[in-house]
């Protein structure tokens, strides 16, 4: 879109942490349990209850902050953020405000034409709210119901600086951030289930202007597609407004993916007065360097570094390396298979083309439960290599391995799929094919080269695909009249 305005975008990402229990109580942080079966006095804000910090949640926060180059604030603390809403049991959220866990990080993203550094303003921890169910749409519902199972689930909020310049770049940034939290194992990254949520702040300004325009916050961007679509839409809306001298109101808008529009939720002119103050029920955190180093030592290799290493060590393309490092388990799988097989390039092909097609989703857990362990994939490749089976048969064997969990060797011997690589046996088949297709043989002699391919196909068919294609080719050439 050609226009005279520069787009300024900042993203606020909320990641649900993959802890066993909630942020401040021992209830399980589960998704999809029956309503109000995963609650206790603490996460339901009962009178007298008190929060107690989950150490693992703090460490997950530190890990993420380190991975995106943040400075950990030695002194950080929780604060209460007040507003009334029925999904929030205490009518305040325990969050971090003036003293967040970490600040001043950065993330390199490349949405073309080259890599750019996006600043991370802060990383802080907070508790999630419950779930509201409306009878029909919120605007028309006569009543709503609350399930507090999600209330108190640990959230990590990652706020970027307004450095993003296009919807594409915003999506690439979000993808990179998602890869990092998934890699670290601190969040499952599932956007449909809401484990990763994104709000965007967007404003336009005339090119060359240094001060920012009026920003609008867009909520409910729960997929990469939504991020892109909503921001594209909002750019159009704001451009139109600016060009017709309409005032842009500082407000919160909600993305409606079905109607592909953003709708105004509330104007900042009636902004909440959150009345933050330090949470008196929780002593502050004191994150000393020793603790930070201990956590740092536990950090796995991050996607960016691993991508580079895959390209260098395994001679993979940027594209292959990028896809294979989207999840830690996938990358681990590839590396294990590549080491066992010794043929990284073809392992990459098999993983990207065959394995990912079979898996229900590229999500990490699916790979961990994959019925073909890396060693078995290497076993399959070895059978192709030593000529036991053809590449074509191998694809069938792969499918059977996936369904049964058996090794390639077991399937090949059980089903008699070993290649016919014996000259005598194959020669008989070749003779038969030549006899049956005299017309084609004639074409060949007349110089029609394609006829050879047809004949190879017939030999394969005659042997139910078990013929060694190279051998069949050679025998045919030998037996055919010379051109």
């Amino acid at each position: 879109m050609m226009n005279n305005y520069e787009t300024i975008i900042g993203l606020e990402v909320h990641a649900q942490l993959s802890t066993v229990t909630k942020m401040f109580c021992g209830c399980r942080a589960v998704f999809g349990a029956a309503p109000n079966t995963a609650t206790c006095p603490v996460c339901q804000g009962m009178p007298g209850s008190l929060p107690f910090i989950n150490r693992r949640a703090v460490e997950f926060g530190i890990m993420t902050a380190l991975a995106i180059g943040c400075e950990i604030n030695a002194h950080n603390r929780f604060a209460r953020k007040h507003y009334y809403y029925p999904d929030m049991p205490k009518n305040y959220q325990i969050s971090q405000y003036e003293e967040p866990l970490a600040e001043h990080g950065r993330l390199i993203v490349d949405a073309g034409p080259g890599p750019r550094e996006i600043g991370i303003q802060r990383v802080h921890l907070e508790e999630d709210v419950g779930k509201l169910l409306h009878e029909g749409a919120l605007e028309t519902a006569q009543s709503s119901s609350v399930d507090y199972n999600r209330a108190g689930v640990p959230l990590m909020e990652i706020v970027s600086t307004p450095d993003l310049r296009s919807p594409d770049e915003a999506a690439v940034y979000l993808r990179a951030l998602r890869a990092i939290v998934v890699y670290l194992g601190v969040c499952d990254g599932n956007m449909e289930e809401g484990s990763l949520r994104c709000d965007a702040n967007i404003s336009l300004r005339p090119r060359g202007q240094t001060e920012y325009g009026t920003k609008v916050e867009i909520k409910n961007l729960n997929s990469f597609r939504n991020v892109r679509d909503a921001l594209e839409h909002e750019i159009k809306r704001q451009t139109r407004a600016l060009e017709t001298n309409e005032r842009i109101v500082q407000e919160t808008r909600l993305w409606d993916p079905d109607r592909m529009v953003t709708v105004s939720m509330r104007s900042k002119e009636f902004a909440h007065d959150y009345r933050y103050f330090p949470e008196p029920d929780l002593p502050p955190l004191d994150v000393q360097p020793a603790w930070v180093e201990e956590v740092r030592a536990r950090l796995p290799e991050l996607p960016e570094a691993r991508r580079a290493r895959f390209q260098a060590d395994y001679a993979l393309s940027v594209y292959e390396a990028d896809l294979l490092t989207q999840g830690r388990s996938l990358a681990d799988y590839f590396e294990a298979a590549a080491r066992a097989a010794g043929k990284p390039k073809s392992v990459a092909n098999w993983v990207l083309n065959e394995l990912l097609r079979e898996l229900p989703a590229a999500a990490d857990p699916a790979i961990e439960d994959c019925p073909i362990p890396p060693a078995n994939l290497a076993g399959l490749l070895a059978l192709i290599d030593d000529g036991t089976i053809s590449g074509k048969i191998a694809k069938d064997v792969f499918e059977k391995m996936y369904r049964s969990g058996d090794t390639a060797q077991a399937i090949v011997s059980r089903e008699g799929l070993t290649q016919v690589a014996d000259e005598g046996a194959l020669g008989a088949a070749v003779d038969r094919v030549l006899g049956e297709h005299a017309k084609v043989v004639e074409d060949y002699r007349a110089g029609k080269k394609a006829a050879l391919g047809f004949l190879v196909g017939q030999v394969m068919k005659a042997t139910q695909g078990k013929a060694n294609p190279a051998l069949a080719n050679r025998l045919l050439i030998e037996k055919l009249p010379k051109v």
Partner: protein
Amino acid sequence: MAALASLTAHELGARYRSGEATPTQAATEYLARIEALDPEVRAFLTVTREAALRRAAEADARFKAGAPLGPLDGVPVALKDVLCTRGIRTTSGSKILERFVPPYDATVVARLFAAGAVLLGKLNMDEFAMGSSTEHSAFFTTHNPWDLARVPGGSSGGAAAAVAAGMAALTLGTDTGGSIRQPAAFSGVLGMKPTYGRVSRYGVIAFASSLDQVGPFARDAEDAALMLGVIAGADPMDATAIDVPVPDYRAALGQGIEGLRLGVPAEYFMDGMDPEVEQAVRTAIATLEKLGARTEPVSLPHTEYGLAAYYVIAPAEASSNLARYDGVKYGLRAPGARDLIDMYSKTRAAGFGAEVKRRVMLGTYVLSAGYYDAYYGQAQKVRTLVRRDFEQAFARVDLIVAPTTPGVAFKMGEREDPLQMYLNDIFTIPVNLAGLPGVSIPGGFTQAGLPIGLQLIAPAFDEATLLRVAHAYQTVTDWHTRRPALDVPTADRALR
């Protein structure tokens, strides 16, 4: 004769062990006294008769088997209604929680039950512990057993009156700005606020989280020592309950106070205080000197500012803590609301009393955008100055001795101006701001026969010294053994 109900908890325990009495006998006698006296005193919001007798019978069996749980086994106790009790309604003195039945026990309650204590019931209080008289209870006002026309103090007025009237051997209250020590002074019993963090707040309906602390009302220092020993200590449910070893408080009682340095703060003997109170406290100080303590003047110059800081910090935290009472999850919901916001506003208007509304408004104001630094931020800094006052004093002395309140129990309905009521807490509030332990013990009576409280303040976590001094004082005085003359006019009614 009300023989068992007149005993201290440790005396009662001795009788159980010797077989002279059983927990069921004691519980029965206490329940009869409650029935006879409480229509006049009005200390109880809820009496848990059946549960009490059941627990007493269980205690009987343990003593019979020679395996009691400890010094509080079978001892009849009662609790300020701010402490959550599973299956027993817990109101915090408010209409908004009139029918709230917690699904869990506060940690202190669980510890008392584990120690075998027999719960008689739940006690009246100012709504959400905001008040100094129980006149702000949403239900009724408790009467001072020494003069039924007067208040028992507050907010733990029911807990103080119940011990004073012999309707429980021991009770628990909470103290945010003096809510244990002031009613103890007004009602002529011992009331102790432990160090902030000494006792778990889990299950204590919050008023001001950074100030609230649970503590005992008792007839003497030894009983207080027993109770504190049971309830004190870190708690996996309260991150502010600090992991500091809990000493054997009773063992330290008899060590005497020879050579102990007592500080007397000039600011706690102010103009306009009741001269009878001042006289009694000065006499008590002389008594402590006779016991071997040395006294010297100390200064706590920010005392008056402490009061102002408290009236910022406590309402601010309260406005936050009380936001959850909105008619959604528990408690009152006002009928006939147009929508959610209307329901919130109507519920809170109908459920909260005037004093609570006042403090919620004040707290909301001091935290609101643009005012935070001037009020809340500044109050927290003043809190630091108040703490430093005490640190400097405790560099020179072991303990501070002072009056608990500037005056004695006032008449019901006498204090109408909120600010006048607040000034009543000027000697107790700084102790909460600094998080220190303090105790009020009976230190004399006025000509009119009203109790006077003597306050002792110690450095953090030194409750043992407080109890030791209180005990030493009680070995040479008999204020704590006096009982209000309630029994005679009400005994007939009990028999009816």
